[in-house]
């Protein structure tokens, strides 16, 4: 459809010998085609979200109608049910605690490491972290499950924070390496010459200068921990069950309550979407472990 892939439409098409009027018309048709394609792509991308929101505001009768009900009087009853009947607030709190702990510990361990990789070019360490990205998460889970079981740590924040750290810490390190590389070395050297120790320089000079990066890395780590399903599925229990596992359990037992599932899906996704808006520049570089600068 788009005739000139990879190029912006220029005023003169190559190899065309048409009358100016014909040229103009062809350009119009092309432009219209491009717009139509763009709209189709956007609709496909957004439709599942649209459907999720629609489902969450429809009652069960409308949701189970054989012909989709597009217009209806919105109801909050699904949200009331999910929040009221299912301990949803407790699960949200669990998710929040786990993601905060994993991000906090991830920052404590990851920031100095990222700084060190950026300053001393410790590529071996960087490579080890990249290897972690290759390994299927269940590989970690089998030994960890046995260990936590022996230590009676299943269904504790210790087990969930430790495993969520596997997801968050490499992410924090990768994002922060490029931020630390941008801190001018002169500033550090000046502080060092003035008698500040390396550690004090790191805490008082380097970290404040990298604050935007730290915010982005923290949010990304939080999102990934919030979204984590596999570790939580095996290691959580009534005391620590986070939202994704709770919602998964909704579908495993009992009849399908479309509206309830829609409302639950909206409630899990909403915080992630809001956080994403705050750090959208860094999402792609985070997902690609710094391979691509968003």
């Amino acid at each position, binding site marked *: 459809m788009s005739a000139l892939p990879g*190029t912006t439409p220029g005023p003169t098409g190559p190899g065309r010998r048409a009358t100016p009027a014909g040229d103009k018309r062809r350009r119009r048709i092309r432009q219209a085609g491009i717009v139509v394609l763009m709209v189709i792509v956007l609709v496909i991308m957004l439709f599942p979200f649209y459907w999720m929101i629609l489902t969450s505001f429809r009652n069960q009768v409308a949701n189970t109608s054989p012909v989709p009900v597009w217009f209806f009087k919105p109801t909050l009853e699904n949200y009331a049910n999910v929040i009221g009947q299912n301990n949803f607030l407790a699960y949200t709190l669990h998710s929040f605690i786990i993601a905060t702990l994993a991000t906090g510990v991830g920052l404590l361990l990851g920031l100095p*490491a990222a700084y060190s990789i950026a300053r001393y070019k410790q590529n071996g360490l960087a490579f080890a972290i990249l290897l972690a990205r290759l390994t299927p998460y269940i590989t970690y889970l089998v030994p960890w499950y046995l260990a936590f079981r022996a230590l009676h740590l299943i269904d504790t924040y210790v087990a969930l924070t430790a495993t969520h750290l596997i997801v968050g810490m490499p992410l924090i390190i990768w994002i922060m390496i490029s931020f630390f590389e941008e801190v001018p070395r002169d500033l550090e050297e000046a502080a060092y010459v003035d008698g500040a120790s390396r550690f004090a320089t790191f805490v008082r000079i380097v970290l404040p200068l990298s604050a935007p990066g730290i915010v982005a890395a923290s949010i990304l780590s939080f999102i990934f921990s919030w*979204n984590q399903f*596999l570790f939580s599925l095996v290691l959580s229990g009534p005391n620590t069950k986070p939202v994704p596992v709770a919602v998964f359990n909704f579908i495993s037992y009992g009849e399908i309550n479309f509206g309830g599932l829609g409302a639950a899906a909206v409630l899990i996704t909403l915080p992630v979407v809001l956080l994403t808006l705050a750090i959208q520049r860094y999402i792609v570089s985070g997902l690609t472990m710094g391979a691509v600068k968003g």
Partner: protein
Amino acid sequence: MAERAARFFDRNAQWLFPLPAVVAIVILILGPVLANVYISLHDWFIGGTPKFIGLGNFGRALSDLRFWNGLKNTFYFTGIAVPAEMVLGLGVAVLFNRDFRGKALVRTVSLLPMVATPVAIALIWALMFNPSLGVLNYFLEALGLHRSLWVANSQLAIPALTIVDIWEWTPMVALILLAALQGVPSEHYEAALIDGAGPWQAFRFITLPSIRSAAVVALILRAIDALKTFDIIYVITQGGPGTASETLNVFAFKTGFEFFRAGYAASLLIFLLVAVLGVSILLNSLRRSPA
């Protein structure tokens, strides 16, 4: 005393800074990978006493039809999803590589599928796939096509699941390629046009080579993650109907945490890890070989 500690730290900053993370990586990541190898050499029922059986679990896998089914499904899923994501991602990148109003908004919107909680995404797709009440069958009928069982049909389960993966990850491929496209200097195109190159030739000889390394990175990342896909498969079908959509990852999960055979699960995961490593090394060689 504090002075001496500070000086000791300064002299050894190079390894003291990364030390906490290195310890964490050894405990959290390297340790478990090695422990997994150890476990795989045992008949290890969770809650029972482990018994050393050498490579017994690996031999058992090779004669287990369910292992081969899982391996086949893993590559079937990846083989559909990843090429589709690359081709569609390139198409979308090219389509949006122009100036228009709302470009920033489109960028933001395209982040949503990849950051939204996978369990929520899987749930919504499960509702849309529902054979009797799902909206996808409504669309099929509206287009004059037959209704489908989607993931409830064992022939269609994997292809249907790849639709979810393609929806979720094509935007990421597109964003990676779009960043690369925007780095191609426009003089290159102007020079090609002066030399009389057509649009296809410009695409083939200028655009594609310029975005090649970004494309390989996207390909490797997607292949690694597609081979390891767990959330959407487990939430939507749990490997079913029967074992029709059971990938190696899902089979290993069930072996370990539903049948409690930790030793056998560990050996399955080593097969999967070898597959992931092999594929990423193979794809990485694309980076160097000439176009």
